[in-house]
Each structure stands twice: as C-alpha cells, then as structure tokens.
C-alpha cells in the first residue's frame, strides 16, 4: 500500500477522534473547520517521523492535541459558542433533543477546564487507560491519576455552583 493510501486509511479510521478534539478546542464552526484541516496537515507532515514505536492512535492523539493547543488564534473576549446541535450529530434528522441537552451540559463542563485538564478529560472520556494517557501527555501514570481525581472534584464544584 502506498504512503498516501495508508495515510488516508488511518485518517478515515480516526476521523471521529479528530472531530471530537476539534469540538473541545474551538468555540465556533469556522475555527473548528480550520483546526480539523490543520490537524490533518500536521499529521501528514509528521507521518514520516512515525516509527511505529507507539500505537498509531497514541501518536495521532499526541500530534492532534499538540496542534490544537499551539494553533495561532486571535483571542476573542466573547466567542460564539459552538451550536452543539449542529456539531455533534451532523445529520439533522438524527437529532434527539434530550440527548443534545445533555451533550451541551457535558461540553459546558469540559470548556470550564484548563488546557491540561481538557486534554486529560478527553483522553479519559475516550476510554484511555492511565498508562496510555501518561504516554500521550508526558505525565507519570500516578500523576494522571491524581489529576483526574482533582478534575472529578472540580466537576462536582461546578455542579454545586450551577
């Protein structure tokens, strides 16, 4: 299989992951589209340096998350929030209003976290084990555990505040 074919297959296998990362790190549709494109571009640029010493998904999360946090973007005081209803389920006929409401609450919680916590939260929600989160983030597994406990606490405080 050629390099391009192999790359497109990998992207197709993980397109949902990239999509979810872009929803967490952006606040409007335009930024989301830009970030999606930038992630694919950076993955392509970095593809030759992937030596297979970690899982392809680990490498992918790492490059995608790094791209999301380093993207040059203009700071806006009040950015438009992403319409979750238009972003999570991309096909209008599949809308479930109650589910969308719960998603909105979930996203509001995630957007309330700082950049480090956001990354940890995403990986945790993606079902990653502490060891893999540690490889992607560069934290030790025990530190990942400690931080996740703190995030849980923070989420509870957010609920109390609301």
């Amino acid at each position: 299989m050629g390099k391009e074919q192999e790359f497109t297959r990998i992207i197709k296998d993980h397109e949902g992951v990239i999509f979810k990362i872009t929803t967490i790190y952006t606040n409007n549709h335009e930024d989301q589209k830009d970030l999606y494109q930038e992630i694919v571009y950076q993955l392509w640029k970095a593809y030759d340096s992937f030596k297979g010493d970690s899982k392809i998904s680990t490498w992918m999360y790492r490059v995608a998350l790094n791209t999301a946090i380093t993207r040059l973007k203009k700071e806006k005081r009040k950015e438009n929030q992403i319409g979750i209803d238009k972003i999570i389920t991309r096909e209008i006929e599949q809308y479930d209003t109650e589910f969308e409401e719960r998603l909105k609450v979930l996203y509001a919680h995630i957007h309330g976290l700082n950049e480090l916590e956001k990354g940890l939260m995403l990986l945790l929600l993606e079902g990653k084990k502490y060891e893999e989160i540690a490889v992607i983030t560069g934290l030790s597994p025990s530190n990942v555990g400690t931080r996740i406990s703190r995030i849980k606490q923070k989420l509870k405080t957010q609920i109390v505040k609301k």
Partner: protein
Amino acid sequence: MELEEMQTIWSQMSDQIEKQKKLTDKMIMMMTQEKYRKKLNRIAYPEMAGAVICFGAAILIVINLDKLDNWYTLVSGVLSLATLIVLPVLSLRFINRMRKINIAANNYKETLLEYAKIKKQFQSATKAGYYLGFILMFVILPVTTKILNGKDLFAETHSIWPIIIAIPVAIVFFVVFSRWVYRSYNNNINSAESLIKELEETN
C-alpha cells in the same frame, strides 16, 4: 454531572459520529496541501501587515533623516525609528517561536509548557507595545510634519491653545486606554502564568 454519566454520553456521541463518517480520500489529501491552509494563522497576517507598515515608515524616516535639522525633531525621529523597528520584530519573533514548537516530537505537557511560556511573553510584549504605540503617536507628529510638509511643529505653532486642549485630552485618553489594555491582557497573562506553574510542579 458525574464522570460516569459523562462517559456514557461521550460514548453514545462517539457511536453516532462513527456512523456519520464522511471523509473521502480526495478530501483528506486536499487537507494535506499547504495551499488549502489560507484561512489559517489569522493572527499572523495582521501582525505581518503591521510589520510591513512599520518598516515602511521606518525606511521613510531613515531616508529623510537629514531633514530633521534640530535636536527635538531628531530625538523624535530616533525614538519613532526605534519603536517602529522594535515592535514588529518582537511580535514576529514570537510568532516564529510558536511555529517552531515541535508538534510531532513533543508530548502534550512539553508543548503546553512551551506554548504557555511563549504566550505569556507575547501577551506581555503586546501589552508593552500598546504603551509604546501610544508614545509613538506623539513623537511621530513633529517628525511627519517636518518630513512631509517641511514645517517645524514647535517653532511654527504660535498659539498655546492647541497644546492646552491637547494635553488634558491626551491624559484622559491615556487613562482609559491603559485600563483597557490592562483588562484585556492581564487575564491571559495570569492564566498562562498559573498553567506554567502547574506544569512545572508536575512530574
């Protein structure tokens, strides 16, 4: 919302997204091309445009330096020149440093730490740039009047009323302006600072 509930919603959402996959090979390969990235780096373009304008003005002053034939226009000229060169060089340097972060090799913590440090310095420099820009507004006036019209703003202004009106207006403007700059940038600087502290304490 408890974490367990969040995980359930997330996995439901993931299932829905998986069913809606729509990327084609052509779309993916298009995204890998540099020419399709024109909407990106929206912060870099205004910075670059600003730099071109500043350097243009600096060149104009250098070419006409001999026209600044008394000490105060010459001092104003040198101050303007320094500001017009330092400001864009600083901001372009930061943008360049941000671009050089090794996305492929760094882990999340390293990238976040590096980015937060550059961001903090960039925001501090931008904040300082606003103040320098405000000073530039005044020092460049006698320089442009002299270069473009051949007039000495100080020697050829006979009435003191424009100065009496201008000084309080400038002070009020400066107070309002400084407060705005302070509010706009300090939150970003503080949040970058606390993130750096947090990451440096982490093993």
